[in-house]
């Protein structure tokens, strides 16, 4: 089947483990690309390639300070993922709340059965 371009969206941008590592590092603050090279143990061209994907979906922003280019995380771009996960989580929370009610009944019933024996 037809595949979308790999840079299509935030989901794809974070589907790559190395890119998630980059986001984790940048979550701790702004860094130049060299920091990322050291932290990830990757060659600079690879890091730059990942940064480009992340920038294309807006997950990472860059600014120039003197001769350095500093990269930082833009959490807003990852909101679709957050929404997706939290929607799923709300559904399961809803199920579990109902399950709590069922379990309370089962506990009571078991206690009654136990005491009547």
């Amino acid at each position, binding site marked *: *089947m037809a*595949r*979308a371009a790999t840079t*299509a*969206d*935030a*989901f*794809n941008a*974070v*589907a790559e*483990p190395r890119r*998630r590592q980059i*986001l*984790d590092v940048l979550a701790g603050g702004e860094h130049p690309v060299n920091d990322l090279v050291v932290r990830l143990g990757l060659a600079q061209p690879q890091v730059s390639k990942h940064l480009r994907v992340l920038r294309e979906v807006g997950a990472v922003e860059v600014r120039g300070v003197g001769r350095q280019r500093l990269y930082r995380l833009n959490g807003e771009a*990852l909101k*679709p*993922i*957050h*929404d*997706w*996960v*939290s*929607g*799923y*989580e*709300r*559904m*399961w*929370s*809803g*199920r*579990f*709340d*109902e*399950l*709590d*009610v*069922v*379990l*309370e009944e*089962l*506990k009571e019933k*078991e206690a009654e059965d136990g005491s009547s024996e």
Partner: protein
Amino acid sequence: MAAVSSGTARVTLPTDEQILITREFDAPRHLVWKAWTTPELVRRWWHANRGEMTICEIDLRVGGTWRYVMVADGFGEVGFHGEYREIVSNERLVSTEAYEGIPDADEHAAVDILTLEEVGERTRMSILVEHPTKEGRDMHINSGMEDGLQDALDLLEGVAVSLR
């Protein structure tokens, strides 16, 4: 990454292919198992208050199948089915899970691993949902921002429902 916590269930995405749901229950393990594997009890909680469960079939043996269908408010019918792969009563249940709303549902079925752990009189539950391949998941969530999100919502059952 992408750990979010609201309410009492906790959902995380441990790897590219996995979704992990965890929750503690104030009940002994055998009762959680019972509520999870008895059709008339499942009917009472699986709908998550977002509609009505119309079909709940459980043939609890290795190689046996299950099928859940609900009519979700404002969304319509959503159906899931799968096969039991491994059963350790009160402890562990491994099954496949196919969402019937996508083509070749079985081919893209996830594997769900339910684990129940005793914590005193309480029970810690974890559900690990494993998609067969990264590509399998990608197909549903990577086809462009809007479509990708919509597919992800469809794939992961009640999400769209819960966003109403």
